[in-house]
């Protein structure tokens, strides 16, 4: 089985937000929730870079470690998913997550945040693959259909890569060699405790 990862090549990202839009549309993510976002660092200054960020599906995920009800699980593909039936909306995963991935539908409502929502790597949830219940709670399960996450597929500059960690790391390495520079695999060290040597 492949170990699925995301990689955003910041030297290619043009902050078009197609990944954000694709994600919202594919999973019918409610208003106010963003499973993916594009953050621009040093906006308007020399060396500005934009990075598309969502759940990185960490190795030894902090969210899963701190969850008081243990509602997270890691799939055979290394995708970190959770059960909305078990989630109590306490917000602890949000404190622990290095990437600000967990989202809540009712933030600030006397602490009743509602069930946590986050990027599923287009892999749905614990319900039967492709079922109506799964779609309503977690969105589309593209992985079960043999497809990769839509955000990366829609990326206009192929900056955002999603798939087998080894393969996307190789693609990135080749790019860096060819163009002669690269600002690094953002978030990899924090999420996977490794980075791509270039």
């Amino acid at each position: 089985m492949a170990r699925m990862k995301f990689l955003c090549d910041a030297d290619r990202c043009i902050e078009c937000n197609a990944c954000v839009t694709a994600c919202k549309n594919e999973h019918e993510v409610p208003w106010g929730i963003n499973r993916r976002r594009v953050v621009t660092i040093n906006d308007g200054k020399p060396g500005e870079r934009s990075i598309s960020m969502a759940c990185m599906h960490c190795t030894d995920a902090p969210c899963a470690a701190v969850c008081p009800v243990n509602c997270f699980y890691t799939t055979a593909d290394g995708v970190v998913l959770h059960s909305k039936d078990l989630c109590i909306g306490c917000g602890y995963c949000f404190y622990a997550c290095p990437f600000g991935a967990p989202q809540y539908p009712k933030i600030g409502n006397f602490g009743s945040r509602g069930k946590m929502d986050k990027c599923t790597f287009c892999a749905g949830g614990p319900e039967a693959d492709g079922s109506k219940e799964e779609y309503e709670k977690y969105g589309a399960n593209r992985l079960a259909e043999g497809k990769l996450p839509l955000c990366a597929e829609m990326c206009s500059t192929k900056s955002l890569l999603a798939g087998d960690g080894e393969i996307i790391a190789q693609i990135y390495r080749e790019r860096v060699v060819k163009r002669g520079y690269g600002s690094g695999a953002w978030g990899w060290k924090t999420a996977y405790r490794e980075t791509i040597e270039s």
Partner: protein
Amino acid sequence: MASLAKHIRLALGAWALALMITASVPSIAQQINPTASAVKEQQLLQELNRIQGRVSIPDQRSGVLEQPAGREWREFRNVTLRWIGGVAILGMLVALVAFYLIRGMVRLQAGRSGRTIVRFGAFERFAHWMTATCFIILAISGLNITFGRPLLLPLIGHEAFSEWSQWAKYAHNYLSFPFTIGVVLIFLMWLGGNIPNKVDVEWIKRGGGIVGHDHPPAYRFNAGQKAVYWIVVIGGAAVAITGYELMFPFYLSGIEGMQMAAVVHAIVAVLFVAVMLAHIYIGTIGMQGAFEAMGSGIVDVNWAKEHHSLWLEEEETRAAAKDARSKPAATAAE
């Protein structure tokens, strides 16, 4: 002259255009190193331990790209807090059981006199018990968040544990309001009797008389009770403030503030629980006649004499003065 200036302008323009075209040719572009000025993840993390930028979606808080501090918070929650809580609470339980077995219940040495005196009025007892009931539910639901996953979840299973934890979370959030009101009432009601004074020094020197059969004098509240009072007021304020900060995310602070709030909230809370165990012990099986004070509000005069001698004297002088005032008034009315 004018035609010469025109020629020079034209020549300059053509030259500038040629320069721009050559500059955009790839072979020259490769000599410029675009990475030289690019932001570096490692550098940004080393500077601030977080990376923040601009987002174009309405949720501006999502501008925090990376905050690896979350991993330290995880370490606190899963390791440090469990140690602090475990040692404080189990340590206190062990100490109390050992104390009970060695010392036993602090009995009324003179026995009951049969005469009683009012110690706490109805409103005082209401405020105490409202705070106390809330505290017990808050403590159980709070400990469930820290210790439920390793201890209770394996026993009752995922579905039941989630259901219980969901209700516990609602109880924890909503009972915080009467608890906070209770702490405020306690603060105002008993502030007068809880200012430390010289008598407390003597009381502490004699170990509160808890070891042996000593009874150091005390006013309405002895130094031990004053300690409990200030722990409730200060600890209660700390858990309330940090708790509300977590209940209303991003109103008071960003993510790092909420992590700090969770740390303070949890440490104060587990120590609070440990102290309250001792308070419950001494108020029930630890001392004969103590529960009545908060139960019916009436205590035996001998109990008051042994544990709050100066308070009893005060009350008796006050009662005598009242009697002296009311008696002539009564005769005059006849």
